[in-house]
């Protein structure tokens, strides 16, 4: 099942392989972010606190949506609302480092792609003065970098992301819950994973996080090789996480596998939609910039529509 059609890639959207080949993760992140900016995309990662500060007389060029029409009706003068300095939001990136993220073993793995995406998102958010943190697992232990701002912290964060390796188990409900807890205020929890593990429990935990007021984004990474069984003849498949081996005939198994995979991806998308969670299905042969652009566009549209709905209903939320 192919991913949602993406917007035409710009000439600056480097392929996943090329980006992955860039050893310096910070550089790769910067390249992606520059590519996003070139496209004129506003970062959707801005605070949307609507705490009113004061009025000031309208100046040409002010955003009309901030005009206080009630005051105009009363005073026959145009005033622009001013708000408190846009609050820097906190972002916690929860990155799946389980063994399944190490697939495929040749070319760009899901973990590497996820690391690049995480680095780009962290770079983007940090450049805008937002605090960014990281939650992952090492063996049975959760490891995290607290959400902070600043260039120094960003470098440290990117360095930590760069050192992550795929292996072991993954406890998504625990990682997501803890990651959300570590955000001191409402923020964005970006979960980058294939979401193979604990499907129901993960869905429930994401719902809890949303109910606690956080904004959750699910970036679901799938490699092209997982979309169907692209093998021929009899093969012995070994589960990267459990080590279980199963002998199958790829030709006869492919159709049913594709159906099962499609059903799974549809479930993930449907539950995200139902819970009001941003969901992006990213196939790892897409250029990371293009994939992130799609996601950011959708998020920006959603944020904008949320703000419009808020204005239409008059004032702060």
């Amino acid at each position, binding site marked *: 099942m192919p991913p949602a059609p993406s917007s035409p890639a710009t000439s600056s959207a480097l392929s996943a392989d090329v980006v992955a080949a860039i050893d310096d993760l910070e550089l790769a992140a910067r390249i992606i972010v520059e590519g996003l900016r070139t496209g004129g995309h506003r970062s959707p990662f801005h605070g949307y606190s609507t705490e009113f500060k004061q009025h000031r007389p309208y100046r040409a060029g002010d955003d009309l949506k901030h005009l206080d029409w009630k005051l105009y009706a009363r005073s026959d003068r145009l005033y622009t609302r001013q708000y408190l300095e846009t609050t820097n939001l906190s972002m916690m990136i929860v990155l799946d480092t389980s063994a399944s993220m190490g697939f495929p073993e040749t070319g760009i793995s899901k973990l590497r792609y996820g690391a690049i995406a995480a680095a780009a998102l962290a770079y983007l958010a940090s450049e805008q003065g937002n605090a960014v943190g990281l939650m992952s697992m090492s063996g049975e232990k959760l490891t995290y970098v607290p959400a902070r701002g600043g260039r120094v912290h960003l470098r440290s964060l990117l360095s930590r992301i760069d050192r992550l390796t795929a292996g072991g188990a993954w406890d998504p409900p625990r990682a997501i819950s803890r990651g959300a807890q570590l955000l001191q205020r409402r923020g964005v929890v970006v979960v980058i994973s294939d979401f193979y593990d604990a499907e129901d429990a993960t869905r429930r935990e994401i719902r809890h996080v949303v109910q606690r007021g956080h904004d959750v984004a699910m970036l679901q990474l799938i490699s092209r090789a997982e979309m169907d069984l692209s093998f021929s003849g009899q093969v012995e498949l070994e589960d990267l996480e459990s080590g279980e081996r199963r*002998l199958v005939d790829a030709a006869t198994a492919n159709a*049913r*596998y594709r159906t099962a995979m499609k059903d799974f991806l549809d479930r993930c998308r449907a539950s995200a939609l139902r819970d009001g969670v941003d969901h992006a299905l990213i196939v790892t042969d897409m250029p990371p910039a293009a994939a992130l652009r799609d996601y950011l566009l959708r998020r920006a549209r959603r944020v904008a529509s949320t703000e419009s709905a808020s204005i239409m209903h008059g004032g702060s939320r």
Partner: protein
Amino acid sequence: MIWQNPWAWLGLATIAIPILIHLLGRDKAPRHSFPSLRFIEIAELPPTRRTRLHDLVLLAARVTIFALAAAALAQPLLLDARRRASIDRRIARAIIVDTSASMQRLTPSGGLAIDSARGEARRLASDAQTSVAILTSAPSAAISGAVEWLESQPSRRELVIVSDFQTGTIDSSAIAGVPLAIGVRAIPISTTDNLPIERRSLVRDASVVARVDVAANPTVVSWTIAHDSARLEPRITLDAKDRSAVEILTAAATTLGVAAPIDTSAVVTVVTPNAENRDELTRRSAPVFSPRLTDVVARLYADPLSPSALGFKAAEDTAGGVHRLLLFSNDSVASVNSAILVAATRRALSIAPAVEELDPSTIPTSLIASWQRAPSATPTRESVDPTNGPSDARWLWAVVLALLGVEAWLRREQRAAMVALKERAHDRAA
């Protein structure tokens, strides 16, 4: 079916070779890491069978090749009727021909019983692969020598006794001593009664005729010794029904010095314990086997006046080309036992018809039938002539060659099927 080289069946262990090759050499499916088998599980995909049907057929062909090769090396021989008849002919026979006086009687067809017996012996000898004929007036005593000769023969073995089976000729205890692997056949020669029995011999230069006229009553025994012009005709009239009287009269005749014709062609030596050459004679002694001496020993044992309690051992010495009977005695030369032994020897050497020969009754037919048995039925390896052309292994080798061709064809078909399968999968993936 017999197997001439049964040790070759150990080669059956080689069928493990194609089985091991089949198990270890199967195409191993390439192993690939996969992020999750979740969806394969959900899809309930059964694993494919790694052993295709034609793999089993190929394995069966290979196992059969090895098994047949082992069978061929075991040198099978199918025993059809022709071969069985041929094997049956491969028999060793010891034929004991009764030459006692009663065999001088006539057969119902008019010929002498002894001539019929000899004819039977000749026929049986020609039918056998190897044979020996023992002519003796004491068939019972000749059995041990005959058995000893038969046991040295590699093929199937049979003891044949051709006789009129007069009472006393042979008894069940003598037959019981014949090993079960040796067949026993008795060929009775029918004779008529009441005819004179004659035995002729040449004693020194004298022609001796011993004649017994067997009548209902009385029985007349006479012998005539003719030498030059001298003629001695002692005559003793006996009542054949009174056997004890006969024995006494025979002993009396001996002790009174009545000349009983003695066959001096038989040389007998009584070896007493202190004889100087006893050790040397012991070294040279062999079982008694020559017919005449066997006859003498038989008469010696049968003599009612010299029971076997005398404790002598009979042997034969053939040194110098002369067959000499040795009687090893445990009694000193001056003892009464030695005298009895010598007297008994003289009587045994006598060509006068033995007392028992006067008895016209014969051993019951049912008893004779109970002695008979066929030689061991299963032909041994030795009984099969290895020079009788190639064994049946050549047919098995022919089947092996054919199967090798089948195996090569199956292998080619399997390879072609695998290539086709891979191409189909490749086309599907493309």
